[in-house]
């Protein structure tokens, strides 16, 4: 049920981010979703891609610092209140969210949230019980 997310360490220097995205492009990696966390000296680029194993291989070979993290992809209604319901569900189950970001399908009424939480098992249980659809890794990679 968990999705592999690549986290890429990107120093705040001209060309660093571009080198990473170019590398992915040249290796035919399709980015499904991403977010960037930034600080004064560096950023962390978080990516959901069609082929995380290949992407991680390519980046490692280029000596880019990365880590792979298991995250949850949950389907939320693409309407006002959709995100609020999902977050409330986690809050009630006493689960902290470290970070999250969203993406939408090309067609259809659904939006998806990528969640990084402190305890994946507990979060999966709470969301499932709350009636949310959890996306399988295969589904996410092939969206």
């Amino acid at each position, binding site marked *: 049920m968990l999705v592999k*997310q690549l*986290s890429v*360490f990107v*120093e705040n220097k001209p060309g660093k981010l571009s080198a990473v995205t170019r590398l992915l492009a040249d290796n035919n990696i399709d980015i499904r979703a991403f977010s960037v*966390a*930034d*600080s004064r*000296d*560096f950023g*962390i680029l*978080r990516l959901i891609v069609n082929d995380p194993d290949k992407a991680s291989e390519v980046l*490692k070979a280029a*000596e*880019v*610092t*990365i*880590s792979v*993290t298991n995250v949850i992809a949950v389907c939320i209604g693409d309407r006002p209140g959709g995100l609020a319901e999902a977050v409330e569900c986690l809050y009630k189950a006493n689960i902290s969210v*470290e*970070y999250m970001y969203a993406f939408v399908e090309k067609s259809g009424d659904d939006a998806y949230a990528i969640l*990084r939480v402190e305890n994946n098992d507990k979060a999966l249980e709470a969301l499932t019980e709350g009636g949310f659809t959890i996306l399988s890794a295969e589904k996410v990679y092939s969206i």
Partner: protein
Amino acid sequence: MENYWNKEIECMSREDMKKLQDERLVAQVKHVYENVPYYKKLMDEKGVTPDDIKSTDDLHKLPFLTKSDLREAYPYGLLAKPLADCVRIHSTSGTTGKRVVAFYTQHDIDIWDDCCARAITAAGGTKEDVCHVAYGFGLFTGGAGLNGGSHKVGCLTLPMSSGNTERQIQFMRDLGSTILCCTPSYAAYIGETLHEMGLTPDDIKLKAGIFGAEPWTEEMRREIEKSLGIKAYDIYGLTETSGPGVAFECSEQSGMHINEDNFIAEIIDPDTGEVLPEGSKGELVFTSITKEAFPLLRYRTRDICVLSRKKCSCGRTLIKMTKPMGRSDDMLIIRGVNVFPSQIETVLIEQGYAPNYQIEVDRVNNSDTLDVYVEMNEEQFTDTVKGIQDKEKALTAAIKQILGISPKVHLVSPKTIARSEGKAVRVIDKRKLHD
């Protein structure tokens, strides 16, 4: 008119000074040979006995002493007097590794105070002055040295220590400080703060400053003189030989007179150890000929400078040294603190990092900055900003623990630190410390 603290010594003929040095050197060599097994061993290994040293002409026969000897002999190995006769300890910064501990008898303190009194007098100080000592007090020699010298001259002494700059200026104004003693970068900072407070040099009574413990340029001197409305004098010293006051500047402001009655200076080729003639640029070596508790013979300072006996307009005959023009080792002086890259490297290894790092030193608004770039490996990379910042904070704290000053640590990707010919460039010093 030039004032002298001890005219007889400061203006002594070369001939008389040599005679005094000869006598003192012979006695000192005998003293250490008999009382310090470490020296006896060094001299025996070189096949020199006290009988071989009949005058300063024989100085070159003695073995050199280096900082690594001091470390090896830490803490008591070079002590030449019983601890019961010692009254004080000073130490260089750093809590491990390169620490140096120096011991003083009361006689040593008296001589040190006397050296600093000469510096204060040469800067125009008399018992009528109010001497504001804003060097750090504690194990660091700066505060204690100038404080002692100021007492000896009879100045009203303000043992301010450093920090709390607005309060420093308040005291200057309320108590009419006339002489300021501190590091040159702190003097520059006081000058800036004065102007930020909306004040001018006319609002304070300072007339002179005695600044040392770190390298500074002529440009910085002019800046400080202008911002504080004073004449700025350089002072030189190192904990190993006593502290500030080994050499001091006079009204000519063109190099520092070495207190030759206490310290014999030589310039050597740092690679071969060969003694170089007067006027050559090389490494400064000191022999303390009056120190009782911690007498160092031919101690290699690692400071590069030039000695000159050119006649000085102030009337002093004491030999002059230029400001240090660099180092023959990789030591950096940052905010007055001695820093070796290897100290930082040790911390990185202890904390589980590979020794791939770069130290960048700069001077921003007259204050030194220390940035340490460290390559992290994949295991050390967590995918949250906080995770990385926590690691940076932990490293900062560990380095501060060792150096006594706080760096700014930046974790960077592996293999991103510039390497030339496969060897990483460890230090980038962007400060302009030498003219």
